[in-house]
């Protein structure tokens, strides 16, 4: 057990080191979602968005939940990228020829991605706070938001790692990534509530796990526990199923690539 922990912590520290050496990349990763989506998009659509439709005091407070979950989405989907590069330059083989548990590499990646994502979510909520968005459910609500984010993130990271292990080239990986990310966002309640969408879009959005996550996070920020609890009670089993499916697929891809 101590050996297992030694492996996982050394591998996790490697990801932290890499990130800290790429200062620019770190800055842009951290700042991009709040700058681009929350500040620009949120303020830009302030008057275009109808508060009757969004059911929120202003657009930025409506959007906050969307940006939180979008950040989870993007971090999760990109979670396998470093393993992809490790696979391509042979570093992964070096790790795998060492007497380590096969799961250490994967677990270190989950720990790293979840930690970074949680920090980012906190920063986003902080920036939103500066624009007057105060989470209605307080600190406990923030904790629940982080929990939902992590549950969604685990599945996404598993998908990303499965892709990293399965694709032939990193070109393929990034094409699929680009193809997945934006439709996932548009076909969810991130930017517009389902009720305001064209029928076919809201129909599709209902099957998007992202919608479920946002619909639980949003009342935690906007309205309060009585509104939020039914959604939270729904999203947890949904995420458990989502994670189970993604982890199963990920484990299969991993075994195929490593066997």
């Amino acid at each position, binding site marked *: 057990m101590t*050996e297992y922990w*030694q*492996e996982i*912590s*050394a*591998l996790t*520290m*490697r990801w932290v*080191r*890499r990130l800290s*050496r*790429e200062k620019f990349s770190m800055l842009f990763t951290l700042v991009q979602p709040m700058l681009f989506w929350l500040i620009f998009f949120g303020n830009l659509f302030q008057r275009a968005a109808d508060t009757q439709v969004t059911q929120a005091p202003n657009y930025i407070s409506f959007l906050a939940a969307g940006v939180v979950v979008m950040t989870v989405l993007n971090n999760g989907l990109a979670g396998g990228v470093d393993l992809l590069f*490790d696979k*391509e*330059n*042979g*570093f992964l*083989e*070096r*790790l*795998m*020829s*060492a*007497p*380590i548990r096969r799961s250490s590499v994967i677990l270190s990646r989950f720990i790293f991605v979840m930690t970074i994502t949680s920090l980012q979510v906190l920063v986003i909520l902080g920036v939103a706070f500066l624009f007057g968005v105060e989470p209605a459910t307080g600190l406990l609500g923030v904790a629940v938001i982080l929990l939902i984010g992590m549950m969604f993130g685990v599945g996404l990271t598993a998908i990303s790692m499965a892709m990293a292990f399965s694709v032939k080239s990193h070109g393929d990986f990034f094409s699929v990534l680009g193809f997945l990310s934006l439709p996932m966002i548009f076909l969810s309640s991130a930017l517009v509530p389902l009720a305001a969408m064209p029928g076919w879009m809201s129909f599709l959005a209902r099957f998007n796990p992202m919608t479920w996550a946002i619909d639980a996070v949003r009342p935690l920020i906007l309205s309060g526990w009585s509104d939020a609890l039914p959604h939270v009670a729904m999203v947890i089993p949904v995420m458990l199923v989502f994670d189970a499916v993604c982890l199963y697929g990920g484990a299969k891809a991993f075994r195929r690539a*490593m*066997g």
Partner: protein
Amino acid sequence: MERAVAIEVNRLSKAYGAHQAVSDLSFHVYAGEIFGLLGPNGAGKSTTLRTLITLLHPTSGTASIFGHDTVREADTVRRLIGYVPQERAIDRFLTGREHLQLLGALYHLTKEEAAGRINELLKLVDLEAHADRPAKTYSGGMKRKLDIACGLLPDPKILFLDEPTLGLDVQSRLRIWEYVRMLKARGMTVVMTTNYLDEADQLCDRLAIIDGGRIKALGSPTELKVALGGDIVSLTIKEMDRIPGLEAALANQPAIKTVRATGNGLDIRVESPEKALPVILETANRLGCGIEFIDYHRPRLDDVFIAHTGRRITDTAETPVE
């Protein structure tokens, strides 16, 4: 004399879908020797190596390291081996020392154990001065040295090197050869793949020539050369159209073992040059073949390779200039 066997490969095959990468390989490696897998790119060398280091499961057959099966006892095998991959398996953001520290943790060394060993290895491969710089500032040769230090960190019983000098300049190559010889002198078993004939010839105690996923020949470089039998006379002939005629005329002469047409002449394996040379010259003269150039040499490893695979290793891989 009974020699200890380090690696035992028994009827090993590996297929990827319909593609048979390696077919029915059997060989063993003795403890303390440098064993080479020689062959052109795509011959199955790397597949064989990766099976031995537990990264691939064979489709059929078995491989064992000091008696431990590479599939069933993978973890035990991993504790006995070190691996230097073919690609520059370097994290450009980590320093040389951080690479070794990471591996130290993965081999479950304590911090103190690791620190001591890391300093020793950095000295060995001459990287002390650069140990705390990110690897992206390293030259190709330095990365290779770090690779080797990483492979040695677990203090393995067997070190596996995949194309250790691919793409290196002459000086770095000689340096790597020196390390490998030194490791052997310390009693380590070394298994390496290469597509450089001179490397196999100079470095390996024994080698297996692999082509199309099969072993074509196996033995020490000297044994392989002697087994060819006879020396080689190479002719360069002016009249290209008369080469087939001369080939046919020489084929049945008593002093001559085999005749093989090359691009601009003939390679003739002869029993004894004293008897064969007059015959060759006389026949060429009789057929009106002007000999532009004549070369006589003891069999070299490339002659061995051609004899067993029917082609030059350079047909698919390039050899560096010496």
